[in-house]
């Protein structure tokens, strides 16, 4: 066991048919860190995180949550993490309160704890006004917030969030940022994937950049930036196309 890493991925590999989506990912997320996983579309971020939380069986490698293997000892490992997957539906024919209560009961929490936390979470995330609206009728931002509430409800030691800031308006985004910052200050660990470099730069203590199924750069925020802006570092690592100014002249 590596005591100071809350979350460790070792040699994760995933192939779909012939395409290698994730090609040997090693990652150690230090306890108490705010870890950003960056990468262009199709880099394998979602695949990696899905394998790390038990949603997708890896072809090789392991994922350890506070020393517990997600695939060998799933019950213990899964009780320690809160997950917000991306592109996955919720049980959206329940209303917000019902969904959170359901989540709490599934996690085996005591009814009185559930009552207190659900009310407070809905209040903090400004979802109380939605009342009995079914989650399927929520806006995209509201869905993100209720999904985050589901991940937070059982007070996990580690949060794994896939694209928590996508499709979220600035007000909700600020609320989510605030909650996550306080969670890390209280000793929790967060790993999340994102495209929004500005948010990553503001929040994260550590960053990893993925491209083509591999980790191309990893370290503390300052190590990865190495004096540049994060955007420059990202483009340099991923290798973007540089505009010459002559294309699309017909536009």
């Amino acid at each position, binding site marked *: 066991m590596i005591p100071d890493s809350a979350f460790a991925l070792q040699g994760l590999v995933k192939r779909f048919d012939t395409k290698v989506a994730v090609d040997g990912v090693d990652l150690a997320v230090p306890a108490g860190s705010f870890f950003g996983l960056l990468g262009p579309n199709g880099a394998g971020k979602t695949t990696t995180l899905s394998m790390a939380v038990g949603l997708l069986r890896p072809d090789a490698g392991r994922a350890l949550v506070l020393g517990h293997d997600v695939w060998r000892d799933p019950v213990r490992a899964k009780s320690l993490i809160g997950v917000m997957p991306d592109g996955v539906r919720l049980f959206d024919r329940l209303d917000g309160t019902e969904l959170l209560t359901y989540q709490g009961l599934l996690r085996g929490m005591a009814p009185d704890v559930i*009552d207190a936390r659900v009310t407070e979470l809905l209040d903090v995330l400004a979802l109380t006004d939605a*009342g009995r609206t079914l989650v399927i009728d929520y806006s995209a931002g509201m869905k993100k917030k209720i999904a985050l509430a589901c991940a937070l409800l059982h007070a996990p030691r580690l949060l794994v969030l896939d694209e928590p800031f996508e499709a979220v308006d600035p007000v909700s985004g600020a609320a989510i940022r605030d909650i996550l910052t306080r969670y890390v200050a209280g000793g929790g660990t967060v790993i999340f994937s994102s495209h929004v470099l500005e948010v990553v730069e503001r929040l994260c203590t550590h960053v990893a950049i993925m491209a083509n199924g591999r980790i191309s750069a990893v370290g503390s925020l300052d190590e990865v930036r190495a004096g540049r802006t994060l955007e420059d570092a990202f483009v340099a690592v991923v290798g973007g196309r540089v505009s010459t100014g002559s294309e699309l002249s017909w536009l």
Partner: protein
Amino acid sequence: MALTFARLKLRVLRNGFRGRPGKIVLFVVGLLAALFYGILTALFFLIPYVPNAPDWGAVVPAFGGAVLVLGWILMPLVWFGVDETLEPGRFALLPLPRPVLLRGLLIAALLGVPAFGTLLATSGLAIGAGVGGGPLPAVTAAVGVVLGLLLCVVASRAVTSGFARALRARRTRDMAAVLLAVLAASLGPLQFLLTSGAQQVGMQRLAPIADVLGWTPLAAPYVVGLDAVQGRWAAVAARLAITVVTILLLAWWWSSSLESAMAGTSGGGEVRTRTVTGAPVARFFGRARLPRTPYGAMVQRERRYWVRDVRRRASLITFTVIGVFLPVVMNLGPGAAGNVVAQSVNGGSMVLVGALAGLGIANQFGYDGTAYATHVVVGVSGRVELRARAVAYSWYIVPLLLALAVLNAVLRGDLLLLPVMFGTLFAAYGTGLACAMHASVWAAYALPENQNPFAINTGTGVAKSFLAMGAWFAGMVLAVPIVLLVVLGGSVGAVLALPVGLAYAAGAIWLGLITAGDILDHRQPELLATITPRT
């Protein structure tokens, strides 16, 4: 333009096969089955034209055709769903005039195994007319066959999309309305089957019915061949006119419901902003006395979902209709009560319906779609999961089955049959449920995330629903010992039927639970992958 749609459909079909040999195998099996039954039915349709045909041969086209058309209308509702490979909503942004789109979708719908099988089967009529009357009747019959196929396809599309629209509304009030409508709709064929069955079946009884059928759209396109052979050209013209008018009316209906499908109505969209009162957990369970555990939570959520989810609601409603229809027809046919044959038919119908009831959960994970990820992330135990789902489903189905048995006993005028019927019915429900549990773990498939509750992805969906049919069959076979006990056991068997049947069901469900549950524990991510729609 129409050609473009045809090419698009074939391309989508082909891409769906890429890298999935299992799917290709199942497709070929389906094709071979269509070929086999198509040729068999075609030979059957030849009967009226062969020399020295039996006297019942004359009614074959009318009854056969009516069965075909009814099959096209009812089968998608009940069993297979509609192939929505080319989903209308996808064309919403393209500048296509409605008639062009309709024509394109129709052609895409014609390019499929069921349409091929139907054409093959009815081609027997045209061949027969040619043999019996020469080229002109053959051409006439061929026109009827083609029009009949068009009628089948348009009718099935129109009815499913109309039905889908009715079911889309969330309020339960609408569900009751739909239920009544469906029941009323099934009364017609019910009455017909009852009158024809209750009286002694004979030519003099069947001929008038065939005559009437021939003048309805159900059989009109299929009897023109006989008319032509006998030189009744006025009748030919009238029947073809009936068919064409029906096709046009149905196309108009389909076209009007197409608009709402393209607009992508988001399910009524009534936003209830009434505030929530009471403690969350107490509110979640309402008046249900369930344990405040993961198990209790899942039972309660499943119970809500069987009402709130359109697809599940549709499956409950269609089961209700078949459940009422099937045993009544089978039991009130010829042959009075008392003898072994009647007893077997009665037991058989109970087994059929009981196992079919269990089949409702054969794709229970597919209904949830990616929402099932919640359970994977939490790590719900497989046995608990399956038990909760079975209990929630039975909460709706068991009262329904009780009512069905009582209805049947009353119609037969013999309430003493009830214990025997309960015994067989629930034994079959138990075995059916156990088999369906395994099907739900092994053969789950993704349902497209659109609004049509009857839509399924072509290929995998249809193929996997064949596996579900296998589960139904297995459920029925496993329930045979109880039927044998009733039929061969005499008065002792009648007394023992209820307790033995219930114990048998309990045992089957228990075995299904522990075996399928343990498999589920090891298959959660794979299951999630199979029920995730590929977009």
